[in-house]
């Protein structure tokens, strides 16, 4: 299934494995969090990139020590209106994680901008809506009041704009 | 002799303006409850529900459901006061809603408390 990244469709090169699927010798793999805990040593020795599927009932801090070794974290929306993953994504960014955060499941255009703002940057979007709908949805609002958002979608933070001569937001190395 | 028929009607809200409407025999949606088709059997009610679902898919109405009702002398009366209010208007504003627009009787016997 193609992924939406930076407002374009890209092919998904990752292999998603279950807990007991055979680990291929090469290539990028995404494993369940339980397998990451179980097989972290062997997973770390591989040359390919490593990602994890993290459930929205797990606590972000349990993933913290693994983050430097991870290139993708997949957060699943079983329903678009279950907002837990928004906090998890933002926590991961606050921990300094700079790899991919991928949204899967019930991902819809009208939530896309919120997801971008909290730090998601890859989306499994299916084929229900054409690309233009997603592209338009990513910039429905050009302004946000909150500070410290993950600013891939480049909207202005109102409070920061109003007080431009104040100190910049310090903890946002990934802001773009 | 006037007979009373008991059964179920289908109601919904019209999507574009939210007005409470009732499914008629011809498959239209009417604001007047007296136009509602009354299903006397469960199979007939299921058929009405199916028609309502199609109307939802066609974006005519939303939130359709079955309501217990009876017909007597050409007038349809819902069993529950909630549904009677949807058919007539608020009990506290007899000047507003369908009761005031000639689309339904008013609360003939005031349902005051």
């Amino acid at each position, binding site marked *: 299934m193609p992924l939406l990244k930076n407002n374009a469709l890209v092919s998904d090169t990752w292999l998603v494995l279950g807990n007991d699927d055979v680990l291929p010798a090469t290539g990028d793999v995404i494993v369940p969090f339980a397998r990451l805990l179980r097989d972290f040593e062997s997973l770390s020795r591989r040359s390919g990139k490593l990602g994890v599927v993290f459930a929205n009932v797990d606590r972000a801090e349990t993933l913290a020590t693994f983050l430097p070794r991870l290139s993708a974290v997949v957060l699943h929306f079983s329903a678009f209106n279950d907002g837990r993953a*928004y906090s998890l994504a933002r926590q991961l960014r606050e921990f300094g994680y700079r790899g991919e955060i991928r949204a899967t499941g019930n991902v819809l255009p*009208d939530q896309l*901008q919120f997801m971008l703002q909290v730090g998601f940057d890859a989306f499994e979007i299916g084929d229900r809506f054409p690309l233009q709908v997603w592209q338009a949805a990513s910039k429905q*609002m050009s302004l946000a009041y*909150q500070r410290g958002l993950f600013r891939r979608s480049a909207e202005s933070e109102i409070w920061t704009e109003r007080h431009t001569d104040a100190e910049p937001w310090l903890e946002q190395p990934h802001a773009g | 002799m006037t007979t009373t028929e008991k059964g179920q009607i289908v109601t919904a809200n019209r*999507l574009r303006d*939210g007005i409470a409407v009732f499914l008629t025999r011809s498959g239209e949606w009417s604001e007047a409850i007296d136009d509602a088709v009354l299903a006397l059997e469960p199979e007939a009610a299921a058929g009405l529900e199916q028609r309502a679902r199609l109307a939802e898919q066609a974006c005519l109405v939303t939130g359709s459901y079955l309501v217990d009702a009876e017909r007597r002398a050409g007038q349809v009366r819902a069993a529950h006061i909630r549904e009677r209010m949807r058919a007539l208007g608020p009990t506290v504003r007899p000047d507003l809603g369908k009761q005031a627009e000639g689309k339904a009787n008013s609360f003939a016997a005031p349902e005051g408390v």
Partner: protein
Amino acid sequence: MYRYDEFDHQFVRERTAQFRDQAERRLRGELTEDEFRPLRLMNGLYLQLHAYMLRVAIPYGTLSGRQMRQLAMIADKYDKGYGHFTTRQNIQYNWIKLEETADILGHLADVEMHAIQTSGNCIRNVTTDHWAGAAADEIADPRPVGELLRQWSSLHPEFSYLPRKFKIAVTGAPHDRAAVKVHDIGLRLHRNAEGKVGWEVIVGGGQGRTPMIGVTVRDFLPEHELIAYLEAIMRVYNLYGRRDNKYKARIKILVHELGAERFKAEVEAEYARKPQASTEVEERELARIAAYFAPPPFERLPRWSAAFEEARLAQPDFARWARNNLAAHKVDGYTIVNISLKPEGGIPGDATGDQMRLMAQLAETYSHDELRVSHAQNIVLPHVKKDDVFAVWQALDAAALATPNYGLAGDIIACPGLDYCALATARSIPVAQSISRKFADIGRQEEIGQIKINISGCINACGHHHVGHIGILGLDKKGEEFYQITLGGSSAEHSSIGTILGPGFAGHEVADAIDKILETYLKIREPGEEFIAAYRRVGPKPFKEALYAAA
């Protein structure tokens, strides 16, 4: 009053355009109802019994004459000539069309208003003391913080799909008129021993199915830390609040199930873990906002107004209204005018377009262009010169807005109930009407004194029945409406949840039951003792006996 700058203007314009597009996509079938519902709710649009209902935000209950006129215009042009002021200091319209909603939002944007987050599982309109900036007992005006929170919570990307709705109230006075202890978060300004001001942060209060009094998680939070600290609370709730059962999804249940200490520890851990950016921007923003709430240019006046005193002597009706509907202002020579939207036999909180325009004009002429909506569904003119009060009263009286029952038995809080609301299980308004007719004699209301009678038409408690001195809850028993009565609730600084007195009543029996309760109170009270104090002294027993004694 706060005024939008270019950013605020652009923000609500873009939001309106976004909703227009969403509504069009819904009408074309590109969004399902399940997908559209949360989007329209977060723009204040419900689907009710008769039509759509639009709830417009009146942030912290403050509005100008121009804004009130626009509300009147919307009532006349898009609704049926009236609106309903709510217990969250908002206004709602009952006969709205989806296809016209974006136009209405555009008209609201013209006067710096919106309907953002007046519904949905997000942070709702922030409420506060309806006498803010005027009350004699106030430490500081809480509305700058209210505005700061309005901005921060608007379209917050992390907190727009919470387990359930989230309500914040703010008070800046020791006498709590904002019910901070029965909100998801209540903020109370107070002064410490060194004379500094800070905020007590109370979490997990609420009404609804499981009424609870909130617990204090921070006793004295410095103002510049408010946003960062609230983010930590919201995050703990968003991550760990229950989503399996909507009746257990409010933050009060999380606080209760974790226990206050563990909840506090979770919040403090999250607060410590979050990157601490400089709060300089928040401090500057708060200072910028606060400048808008500088007191209006009050005149230096004597405390005593000859014109006011003469009118009181000459006009007994005015004297009675003045006795009941005015409140102490912090500036000499001024008073707070409370306009009761509770005429005898009327619908609590309803006002016509004409009445709204009159109140707008009075605010512009006599109250520094300010109006307030109170959570008791009344309107306040916060800054009226005592010299002008008689003229204000004459104008109100001519528009049927001078009911002299503020805070008395006729000043009943009632939700719209089953007459309008899709969630209701019983009607509220007819019960309020029958009680207000029973106590039509204002002299008797005055004898009874301060009393809060609150009516909800379902367990969601929009009519605040749990915190009414007398609470009435409408329920459905096998298709029939019946009403449970509770006594002893209060939303003031010594908050309490009412206790159910006994078996419920049919609708037509409620007014008599309230009559018996109040007659009992008149018999047992000590000199000067208000109803709630008497109830707390004697408990439910004498009231139970009066209500349920074998006939």
